[in-house]
Structures are given as C-alpha cells and as structure tokens.
C-alpha cells in the first residue's frame, strides 16, 4: 500500500517506523520534542515515544553531536537533527575528528552508527546562514557518508538505510523540497541503498548529474530543450555524494558522450570537480565536449533578496546544455 506524501512527511514516517522498529533509536536535537522540529519532521514523535527517546537538547551542537557519538559507541542509534546546515559548524570537530574516525582509531572495536539530519540549500527566503550547501566539506572526510534525497520516496528509503548503516551518515534534506510536491510512498519499511544513483530521465545527447533541489531544475531544463530542440538529456540523481556512484556516472557518460554537473554549492572544490575527475579518469575518450559545471557562485550565499540569482536556474542550465552540445 502507498499514498502520496511530501518529503517532510516521508522523513517523519521513516523516523517513526525506525523508532518503532528498534528501541536503540533515539532522536536528539533542538526543538524536536514538544515543538516537533522547526520544519515539523518530528511532529507527534515526542508524544508517541517520550522524552527519553525524543530528546530536546540544550542549544549546543558540539554537545549534541559529541554526546550522540558516545551514545552510539555504547549501543544506541542516535539520529541527530541540526536545525540548519550552517549551524553544524560548532559540531564540525566532533564529526570529522571523532565520529568519522572512531572505528578507525579503535581498529573496529567501537563505531558510531549515527545519522545527522539537517535541512540545507537555498530558495526558501531564509535569513542569513540558513541556505548553505557545503556538502563537499563532509564528502572530503574519510569515514563519513553523505546522502541527499530529492524525492519523498528516496527520502524515506535513504533515511531508513542511513539509520541502519553502521557508520556515520550526514543526511542532507533539501529545504526547498520539504513540501514542494507529493508522490506515492509505500507504507512499509523499505530501503534505498546508499551509494547508488538513479537515472530519473533517460537520454542520449547529454548527461546531467545533480542532486537535491537541483534535480527539479535539471529536469525542467531537459524537458524544455526536448520540446524546443528535440534533444534528449539524461538526468542522473546521484542521491549519495559520498560515496559517489561511479559506475552510474560512467555508464551515462559513455552513452551520451557529453556531461553537465549542476549543483547549488560553490563551484570551487565543489563535488562537480570530483565528478569531472571521475569522468576524466575513465571516460575521457568518450567525450565530445568538455564537461561543464553550472553551480552556485564562489561567493557567500547572499541575502534572500537575490538568492535566486545565486542559484543555478533553468535558464543557466539550458545555456550550459546548449554550449556543451554545440561545442
């Protein structure tokens, strides 16, 4: 059985079902209890599972993430909510120096089966520092996994996989997509594997690699160019930023011979560079044109009055496609 859910509802359902399924699962975060989370991802869970498992924490990101590390090492499965991605920095040291390394430095004796969920990305008219996309900070750290859903179905399945994963997973939720649309989501517990991309639109002229909120932008651009010029662009939702699904990237590029990466993160040292590097290593001779990047600019994410000018738009993506195909 399935019914239509928004992404936030799908996330909430995944949390609910894992809490019911496994007594070790605990939720920690600011305002996630009585208040149900600032985006309502944990609505109703406090009443259902109580204060021992749905924990309203002090406002202290290092304390939340650090104590979740200890909880995870001692048999719990902590699922942390950080209110916005740009608020994670006080806990950054805990993530990179401890969560990511605990298995390694104890030679497998202790591990941290933690999930850190956090809304990210621009486009919601948020105040300053509510709109960042710094996924590559985390993708750079061995020991972490980084996941970004773009649909309600994937959000539920990926979150369940993340909670069941024995290693720490950074789960980035595109704020803009929380309530953007609904789709059929199965009622039961199911998993979407981490590290596997999904081709959401088949094509033969060019491959677009994207994730999160940029998927909809990429799809729209692809649809318009099909109508306008008859070009068929393949859109690949990478879903996992770390590890990247190299096989899916290569299979698509080998088929189309052209590629474009779209991400809202800053261009320099963004994941686009890594994707191009994978193509360079293994599919260079399949290319008919250089791989282009359409990304956020190398400036701080601006105030919301001009955030749409910062973000890759359908027009910018279309221009990138045209330039690549007509190279």
């Amino acid at each position: 059985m399935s019914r239509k859910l928004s992404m936030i509802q799908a996330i909430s359902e995944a949390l609910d079902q894992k809490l019911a399924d496994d007594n070790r699962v605990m939720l920690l975060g600011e305002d996630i209890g009585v208040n149900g989370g600032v985006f309502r991802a944990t609505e109703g869970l406090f009443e259902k599972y109580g204060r021992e498992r749905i924990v309203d924490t002090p406002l202290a990101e290092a304390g939340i993430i650090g104590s979740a590390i200890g909880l995870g090492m001692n048999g719990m499965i902590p699922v942390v909510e950080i209110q916005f991605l740009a608020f994670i920095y006080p806990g950054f040291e805990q993530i990179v120096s401890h969560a990511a390394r605990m298995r390694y430095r104890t030679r497998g004796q202790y591990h941290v089966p933690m999930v850190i969920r956090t809304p990210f990305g621009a486009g919601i008219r948020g105040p300053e520092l509510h709109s960042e996309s710094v996924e590559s900070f985390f993708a750079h750290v061995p020991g972490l996994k980084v996941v970004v859903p773009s649909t309600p179905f994937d959000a539920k399945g990926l979150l369940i996989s993340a909670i069941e994963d024995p290693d720490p997973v950074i789960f980035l939720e595109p704020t803009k997509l929380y309530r953007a649309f609904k789709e059929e989501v199965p009622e039961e517990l199911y998993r979407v594997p981490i590290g596997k991309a999904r081709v959401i639109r088949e094509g033969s002229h060019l491959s677009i690699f994207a994730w999160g909120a940029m998927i909809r932008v990429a799809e729209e651009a692809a649809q318009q160019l099909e109508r306008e010029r008859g070009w068929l662009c393949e859109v690949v939702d990478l879903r996992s930023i770390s590890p990247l699904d190299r096989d899916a990237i290569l299979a698509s590029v080998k088929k189309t011979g052209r590629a474009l990466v779209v991400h809202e993160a800053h261009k320099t040292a963004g994941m686009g560079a890594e994707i191009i590097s994978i193509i360079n290593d293994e599919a260079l001779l399949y290319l008919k044109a250089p791989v282009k990047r359409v990304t956020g600019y190398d400036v701080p994410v601006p105030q919301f009055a001009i955030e749409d000018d910062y973000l890759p738009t359908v027009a910018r993506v279309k221009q990138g496609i045209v330039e690549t195909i007509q190279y």
Partner: protein
Amino acid sequence: MTDFYQVLDPKGQLLEDTRNQISEETMLKMYGNMVIVRAFDRKSIHLQRQGRMGTYAPFEGQEASQVGSAMALLPGDWLFPTYRDHAASIVHGQSMTRVFLYWMGHMDGSISPSDRHIMPPCVPIATQMVHAVGTAWASKRKGEPHVSLAYFGDGAGSEGDFHEALNMAGVFKTPTIFFCQNNGYAISVPFSQQSASRTVAQRASAYDIPGVRIDGNDIFAVWLTVKAAMERATAGLGPTLIEAVTYRYGAHTTADDPKKYRDQERLAEEWRSERDPVQRLKVYLEQSGLWNEWKETALQTKVAEQIEAALIEAESYPKSQAADMFKHVYEVPSWMVEEQQKDAIVPEGKRGVLA
C-alpha cells in the same frame, strides 16, 4: 594550600581517619601502581631519546591523580583519557605493551582490552568530555550501573566542549565524572592566564552540579572523591566535576622545553621535594608498618622486569603494514578505499610501467 580536600598531607600524615574506608590491600596496590607507572613514564622518555619511540607526553608528578581515580573505577566503567593519562589507562586495565605501541605510532596502539572500555587517548582538547556524557547516558538508558570518567586538563576548561559537556550532563543527569588534573599549565600558559576563575571546580556551580577541589597529589583524597562521585552517579544523581590540583614535573611532551616558560628546575624541585604523591604514600605506609626497604627493593625489581617484558613484547609485535591504513575506515570498505588499497599495495617490482 588549604583550599582543597586533603586526607594525606605532604608529610605522609593522615588528616582524617580513613582506615575503615581504604583497606591496607588497596593502599599497597595504590603504591605499587604509582611506582610502576612512574617507572614506565621514565622508561618512555628514555625510549624517545633513543629514537625507539615517537613524541611522548610524560605525566610524572600526576601519579596520584591518575592512579587513584582509575583504581576507584570498576571494570565496566568507561575511561576517556587524554594524551597524558596513560597511567590511568594502565591502571584501568590497558597493557603497557599497547601504550608503548601507541607512542611508537603503531596502528594497534589504542585497542582496548575486550573486557574494558578504555578509549584511545584524546588528542584534541575537551572533545572527549561530551563523549563521556553520551556513553554514560547510554549506560543509564540501559540500566547498567557504570560510570564514564573523562580526564582533561586546566586548559580544557576554556574550550566550549567543556561547558557543553557539564551543561548537558547536568540536564540529563548522566553518570559522568569529569576529572580535571589542574597541573597549572596548558603547555606554557599558566592557569592565571587561562582564566579569571580562581578554580576549575567553581564552574560546577554554574551548572548546579557538585564541584570538588582536591589535592591531586593525595591519592587517598582522589580515590575517596571519585568513589563518592561514582555513588552519586550510579544512584541517578548525575555528574560531578573534580579538580585535582597537581603538577607535571617535566615537559608538556618530549618536544617541549619548559625552561622557556617557567622556572623549571626550582618549581620541579619544589613540588618533588615537598609535595610528591609517591613519596608521601611511602612515608605513610612505612610509618604504618606496611612497608620497608626490603619490600621496596623487591617491588622495584618486579617493576623493572614487567616494564622490560612489555617493551620486548611491543618491539617484537608485528609491525604495522601499509594495508592496515585501509582497514576500519567503514564497516564495508568504499570503492575508493578498496581501489586505492590495490593501488598502494603492489608487490616489489610490479608497479605498472616501472615493472
């Protein structure tokens, strides 16, 4: 210095009668442990000087703090040491062999004995304090009567994680013991410059948890205070902050020169001759008829043999291999790790075009 809790004064005199609380057997064990860890510490410095070990952080002077606190713990309790707390790790059950291996840069140097929870030495400052909140919290949730004890220094009190840990432990009443060894210096910066607070312990009052300042060179005071904190913790009353006032005789690490920032010889001599933790217990034991020169000689011989045996074991332990760096990054290796390992581990003379 009367602003701290002291039981055994520097001259080896008991200030209160604790004979019904600390058995003779425990006192003898305290002494034996302090003697062996001090010898271990000195041996380690020698090994570093000889090039047989990497940079090493010595703790001589702080034996009572570390041995007394770790001896108070029970086998199921979690220990979170810093890079200067190998005495505590050894007393809680870590082998000297492993500690040697750690400082020799071996990948297996921080593996805990399987029947203990001894964390690897924490290198960043104060970050382990929040872990000890988490493990204690989990023990409480599981209904297990274990405490988590985190060591840290006076400098750690300036870090945000210190305050977040104390605050969260207070809110959730976790069975955590925060054990500060205030040895007066964070590498070179004296405590007077570290903070305008007169003590570390007084900060507990901001979080409404007990804060106790004790003579960290008095092993009886240390042991009794940690025992009391354990009772509170396992009774569900929450954390305790303990500030043990002590002194490191030597350098911050073997790469440090304390003469640059303090009157090293005078201060070390002063602490050594007037407040040494090992000597004062020895005096007390001798005066109580529990110790004599014959026992001392036997102990010193045994200690030297044990350290030598641990060293031989460490130096003959299988060397770390390049392949070890690729293990335990994830439970299931990522394709990147798998591939890079294949690339890194190439038999002699088989490296691609160079073959």
